[in-house]
């Protein structure tokens, strides 16, 4: 039973102006993700995967075309409206983990809840539970520099889940960790999908993409 549409891109273009040169990173990309799906976007380096993730995740505006989240066009919203959407509806997992170095694992997971105004006691407890659920119950007070790559990515996953977003957006989540740990991270993400979370994962690794329900191939800024 296919769920409702969560993400829909319609003829999305992204053109970067580099001085005299125009780089067409996305050239009329269209695709849809339904609730509960696990979609992998696969493609070679430079094919526009990260740019696509920026569009889906409301991190940037498309040059042309529309991006729908829950059937609302978000491509023309203000920056502060987008911030709210990012905070509530989307959970990011990046290749470079992107944790704040000065904050502990617990505080990093609390951060998205801070921006949503969740009270200290509630968010601390939730952050602790999330870290326990990703297997880091013993590392709450560690700074990112005191954690291995795999552990940092687990913290990032816990952070991405903290506001219970509709979509988990992962951009090459195993790109910076060794393959054995990478498989564990993938298992974690696949498990989250089985529990109902909609997942969009970007990767250039075909073997990882196979874990998804559906694979979309990106080439030169559009689906192949």
């Amino acid at each position, binding site marked *: 039973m296919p769920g409702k549409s969560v993400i829909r891109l319609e003829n999305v273009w992204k053109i970067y102006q580099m001085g005299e040169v125009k780089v067409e990173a996305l050239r009329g990309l269209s695709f849809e993700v339904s609730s509960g799906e696990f979609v992998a976007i696969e493609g070679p380096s430079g094919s526009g995967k990260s740019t696509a993730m920026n569009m889906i995740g409301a991190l940037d505006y498309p040059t042309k075309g529309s991006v729908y989240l829950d059937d609302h066009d978000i491509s023309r919203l203000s920056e502060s409206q987008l911030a709210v959407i990012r*905070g509530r509806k989307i959970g990011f997992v990046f290749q470079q983990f992107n944790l704040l170095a000065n904050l502990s694992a617990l505080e990093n997971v609390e951060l998205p809840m801070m921006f949503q105004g969740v009270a200290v006691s509630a968010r601390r407890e939730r952050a602790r539970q999330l870290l326990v659920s990703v297997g880091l119950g013993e590392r709450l007070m560690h700074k990112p520099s005191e954690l291995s790559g795999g552990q940092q990515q687990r913290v990032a996953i816990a952070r991405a889940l903290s506001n219970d977003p509709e979509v988990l957006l992962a951009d090459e989540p195993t790109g910076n960790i060794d393959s054995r740990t990478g498989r564990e991270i993938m298992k974690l993400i696949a498990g989250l999908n089985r529990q109902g979370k909609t997942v969009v994962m970007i990767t250039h690794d075909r073997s990882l993409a196979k874990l998804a329900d559906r694979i979309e191939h990106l080439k030169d800024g559009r689906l192949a």
Partner: protein
Amino acid sequence: MSLKDDVVIVLRNVSHRRLRSWLTVIGVVIGVAAIIALVSASRSLEASIQEQFEAFGSDKISIYAASSGGPPGFDANLNVDDADAVRKVKDYGLVVEMLFKSAKVEFRGEPVNALISGFDSGIAVETFKEFNLDFREGGPFESDSNKVVIGSRVADDLFDSQLFVGSKLEINSEKFEVVGIVESVGNPQDDSNIYMPLEVMRDLFGDRTSVSFIVGKVKPGSDLNKVSARTAAELSRIRSEESFEVSTPEQLIEQLSIILGILQGVLAGIAAISLLVGSVGIANSMYTSVLERIRDIGIMKAVGATNAEIAMIFLIEAGLIGLVGGIIGIAFGIGIAYLIGFAAAQAGFGVLKIRIEPLLILFSLIFAVGVGAASGYFPARRASSLKPADALRK
């Protein structure tokens, strides 16, 4: 995001860049300390001078020869006829004519130069009282004999050995006996005075006519300005208008206030410049802080921070640097102000009582936080307007 959360994030960040944060704070500390110390010292000086005048009395009018450049009284261009003219004005309850001269004073074979002040022995008791000269030992001379009253510095510091009531001095080779020692009035010049009966002084210096300075104490209820005008009119009959000055305490305070105002302006300017330098330091530190944290800004935006929340974090960081710098600066400034007071007292200017105005502290603190926030404003705006996708690429 609550203010408390902002502060937590800011604290984590500034403690991460501890050394640089402290260096920035020091810039503010210097500026605020300079403001507190310089403004307090000059305001205290003004208040102290005001107090001295009030102690001297708001009921006195001074008459001296129009200055030819030196301090009032030293030209000795007045004479006994002028004193008589002043006495004709009926509004005075007491008129004291004074003569100042410098003389060679010897004690136990040690010669020094000192200032001698003479006034009528018949009104010596009132005169010492009106000038707020309290005796710590002995009392005033009461007849025209070779007796002197000395200032505290003459007794304690001027000679190698200590002087007491009964000590014998030689002034211009004549013998004098110390009958009284007055307490310090707080300024070294007055504390170095030697007072003697005017008649004796005139004989000693062979000067029967000169008068350096005349002070009139008006009767209660008189209008100082009117009395001053009447005095000037009386004097104008026997000498030219330009050759003398009649001044009320208000006028003297006004003149001093102008000078003090200029001094305060200069000092405040110095303080403001140092604070400006401090604010440039904050702005610079905030810009590098923004540059260093472009990626962090991207991360915070990705997890839901709005532009306003990012700007607030940086503004709070800048304001906090201002606040900490302000608090430390105030503490240092108060310390320095008291040190200035202490140094002045050591130099004999005990009149300079340092007082710190609570309003100045409050103002400095608000100013420091304001300067911090203002210096952080543009860096904060820059930080907040970064697009998350661009910030994350850094």
